[in-house]
């Protein structure tokens, strides 16, 4: 939407002011994420830009991989400083995060897909009610979900276990799968199911041979959403997990509260990269799905 050639000077001013404002907002959105990347390569044990880092030409002394080595559990003398102890917690957290995340994603994807399939049937009774109950974990504040789950799981002895944390994450992640899969099913031609069945396919076979290949992009992006939800979740982990179930977010939380160290920024940088990868995958899948269904890209 460029300016027409006949625009008056005032309109031009407004237009450029508007563009400038938008640029500022975009900057506001991403600047913090970009700012942390260079600091994570700093030598200094504080989360600031040091003089050496800003000097021109760059001072190689000011940059290092020190905190990254600390993060992966390297404890040699040049890595540890007086304020930043060496710890193996980050790696343990990473393993746990992936373990919990992957299992929770798998369960949530299966459950969510089934729910979405059922909900998109035209004759499903109480559709709106079921949908709002399924979606509610997304809207209800996490702290409330966490408190409620804590009381409930305490009664059935699931607090401080992997099972408990995974189940809680499944409950949180399922709505994302339901939403994405439902969105893919909008353009789905139910006659194909009928055709498959009239040709003699059993329901399971129909699902795996006909439905699933078509809604796969939706399922995958739902699964990615589910994964990031579980991977990023801190409130529930804080209440329901003991030290054995330490995850990356919990360790980051503890790190920010106790010893503010650049190691946190190293992990943060890794997470930003992870999110870029996931975002790109989801975007590509979405476009592919829209192309396949013959809907013009938005």
């Amino acid at each position: 939407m460029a300016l027409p050639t006949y625009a008056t000077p005032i309109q031009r001013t407004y237009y450029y002011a508007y563009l400038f404002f938008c640029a500022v907002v975009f900057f506001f959105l991403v600047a913090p994420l970009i700012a942390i990347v260079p600091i994570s390569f700093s030598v200094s044990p504080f989360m600031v830009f040091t003089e050496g880092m800003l000097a021109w030409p760059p001072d190689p002394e000011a940059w290092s991989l020190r905190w990254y080595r600390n993060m992966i559990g390297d404890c040699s003398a040049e890595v540890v400083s007086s304020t930043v102890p060496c710890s193996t917690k980050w790696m343990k957290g990473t393993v746990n995060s992936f373990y919990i995340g992957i299992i929770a994603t798998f369960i949530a994807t299966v459950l969510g897909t089934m729910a979405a399939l059922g909900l998109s049937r035209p004759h499903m009774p109480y559709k709106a009610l079921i949908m709002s109950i399924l979606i509610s974990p997304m809207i209800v504040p996490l702290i409330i979900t966490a408190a409620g789950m804590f009381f409930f799981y305490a009664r059935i002895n699931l607090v401080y276990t992997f099972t408990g944390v995974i189940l809680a994450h499944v409950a949180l992640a399922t709505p994302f799968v339901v939403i994405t899969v439902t969105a893919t099913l909008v353009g789905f031609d139910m006659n194909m199911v009928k055709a498959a069945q009239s040709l003699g396919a059993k329901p399971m076979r129909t699902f795996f041979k006909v439905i699933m290949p078509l809604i796969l992009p939706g399922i995958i992006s739902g699964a990615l959403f589910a994964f990031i939800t579980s991977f990023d979740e801190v409130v529930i982990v804080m209440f329901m997990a003991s030290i054995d179930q330490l995850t990356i977010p919990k360790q980051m939380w503890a790190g920010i509260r106790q010893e503010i160290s650049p190691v946190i920024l190293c992990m943060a940088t890794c997470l930003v990269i992870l999110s870029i990868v996931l975002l790109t995958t989801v975007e590509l899948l979405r476009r592919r799905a829209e192309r396949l269904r013959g809907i013009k890209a938005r």
Partner: protein
Amino acid sequence: MLLRSVDDSQINTVFPNTFEEYKKWDKEKDELPPEEVYRALFEELAYGDKIQVGRALTRMNYSKSGWKSLIKKTSRAIKKAVKKDELPDNYKDFLIEANEKWADPTYWYAMGQMVNNQTSIYYWNAIDRTFDQELNVVQQEEDRRVYVQTWLKTLKVSIYVTVFCLILGFPVAHLLANLPLRYSNLLMIFVLLPFWTSLLVRTTAWIVMLQQKGVINGVLVWLGILSDDGRIAMVYNETGTLIAMTQILLPFMILPLYSVMRVIPKSHMRAAQNLGAKPAMAFWRVYLPQTIPGMSAGGLLVFVLAIGYFITPELVGGKDGKLIGSWIAYHLKTTLNWGLTAALGAILLGFMLIFYWLYNKIVGIDNIKLG
């Protein structure tokens, strides 16, 4: 959780007989409860399960401080007497002798709050009220009032964040909706990247940006706008919370707005101007009304998310930035006052359901789109 917020049976299982007798006490006639109450209390303290009594004590302390030490001292005296096999003739005199507080009717009145299996005390506590002797609802003492203030602050912060998100999000959504797809898809990454990035990463990033020696202060000093010792404190106070929460929730405003603006035909604005409206007028009368669904969807979403926010205010907000979520976490994790936790949670949930219902009315819950 809702059950927990009114549940008061914990203590009833410990002192069943005492409470049974207590109910017979005619407060009008006698200043102190009758002998039977003292007797039942004596027996239950003497033979009760120690751990159970301990739990009950914690509950009793919520209604009036001083219970814990009172019961502990008394039960020591009772245990001594039982050991020596000297059951007193008059239980009332014995207990009052053991601790003169048993002659103080205010403690007995406080016990009255706990007699029933269900209680609303936690709800009243959650809005800074408590019971007086006659079980009337009164204001909490001055120095124990925190929740009303926190509720108001939570509300204030949420409203501010919603308004800021709207101001910042509207032009951006407009730009994205009107650019050719090639560019808008590219720019969309700027919105989606924060949306996909871990909440904690973004919160950490804001601490790095805003702290005393942080990026923003550094740039301002370098530009000469601030002197080196005039650095602004932007983090660990309400300003920090507002800035960080606005950035974190902004994508939730932009995305619904964008999807609404995308389908508004551009020809409407041109038609309005053709009919003689000034651009501002055309915008105000033609464009803006069509974006209302988007604005209300985004606004409600941001508001609902902001009101229950906990991680960011807790980390960036410092001492005075605490919102209601922090208190819930505090009581759940630290003081273990689960009744109050549940009551605060239930009130918040009530708010949320109202907004959820509104949201459903306005946009329909199945219209939520991701990315």
